[in-house]
């Protein structure tokens, strides 16, 4: 009899994970859990950082095979820096997302990683882009990804409002991550959040025991 597996079958270390990025009034918050797992029942790292800074105001978060994700983000970081130097101005978030998309699409047979790119630029302000497994690029007001995201589609659909304040958005992102980490066994650890605005970048780390608790905990 067929059994249904919801996790992707990734060889090696995987960031079976929960990642998200949400725009608010004046900026964007990008967040993730911190667990890296192998095979669904061994946690290789409890404190891995899945939020990679690819430029001053642009971050990427990774889901899927950790090896693939690190290779892609390293290449993308180089390409975006070079592009930014050549253009003599900070890169557009869309440019960074397109670089990720090119790498994912052109190598779609070999790669098994998905990305969320979020950041702030002068032209369009705060933006969120998602690059899915096959190399699709989509711009959205907010997006969630990784294996843990399936459990919070309902919550984020219900709770997201456009033009939230920074505090509301931080609460929304923290709650969403806590709920996903509570249900997905390959997401966990601490919640990493990065708040990106015109003025700068702020890291917020919420350890597991300080995460919001829900009715059955």
């Amino acid at each position: 009899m067929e059994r249904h597996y919801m996790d992707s079958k990734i060889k090696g270390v995987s960031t079976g994970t929960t990642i998200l990025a949400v725009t608010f009034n004046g900026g964007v918050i990008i967040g993730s859990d911190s667990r890296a797992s192998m095979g669904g029942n061994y946690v290789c790292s409890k404190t891995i950082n899945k939020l990679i800074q690819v430029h001053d105001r642009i971050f990427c978060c990774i889901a899927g095979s950790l090896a693939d994700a690190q290779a892609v983000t390293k290449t993308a970081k180089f390409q975006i820096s070079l592009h930014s130097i050549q253009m003599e101005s900070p890169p557009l978030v869309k440019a960074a997302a397109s670089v990720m998309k090119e790498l994912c699409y052109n190598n779609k047979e070999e790669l098994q990683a998905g990305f969320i790119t979020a950041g702030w630029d002068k032209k369009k302000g705060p933006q969120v882009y998602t690059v899915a497994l096959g190399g699709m690029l989509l711009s959205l007001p907010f997006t969630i990804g990784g294996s843990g995201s399936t459990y919070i589609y309902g919550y984020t659909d219900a709770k997201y409002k456009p033009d939230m304040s920074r505090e509301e958005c931080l609460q929304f992102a923290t709650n969403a991550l806590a709920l996903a980490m509570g249900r997905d066994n390959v997401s966990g650890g601490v919640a990493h959040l990065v708040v990106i605005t015109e003025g700068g970048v702020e890291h917020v780390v919420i350890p597991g025991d300080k995460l919001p608790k829900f009715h059955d905990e």
Partner: protein
Amino acid sequence: MAAATATRFCQQLSSVSDMSPDWTTKEVSTGTTIMAVEYEGGVVIGADSRTTTGAYIANRVTDKLTPIHDRIFCCRSGSAADTQAIADIVTYQLGFHSIELDEAPLVQTAANLFKASCYRYREELMAGIIVAGWDKRRGGQVYTVPVGGMLVRQPVSVGGSGSTYIYGFMDSNYKPNMTKEQCLHLVSGALSLAMERDGSSGGVIRLAAISESGVERQVILGNQLPKWSTA
């Protein structure tokens, strides 16, 4: 299952899927979203109304809330054939038991009868069932019997393919000791979110509130579904 083994071991010039649509070869499934919540004095249960054979919606107004006894219902998910067969068997067994006992049966009894069938025939069946109802001894109760045949009582339970999308919503919005109206609101909200995201769930929302005084059934049509800012 027989169709699957045949295709593996014989050579074919063309596969069935080229010549005919997929719904001629796929089993009927209630890929679905079902939910049940306990409140003081009863339970609220809800389900979507979509039954699929592959990509074809065989029934878009299915009733997945099946009465097992006067104050006991079950919510069915998984194979439509399997769950209908099990529900029929349990209805018979429970009815017989109730007559012997000369009083209304317990929800726990109904749940255990489901578990017995689902566990014994676990290799052949694909059925995820939520049993909910009211009885005199323990009031409103929700028992979940997922695929495999486990039995556990929970204050709130979701099931079916669409349920994965609403775990977060359910965890954050359920509070103990809610009123019947709050439960109805929670269930209809959760089901509409799941129907929005799950391709195998959709149609109308069927709700039922079961208490000592009886069963109140309700249907929320597609254009009356709760809306969210992202829709």
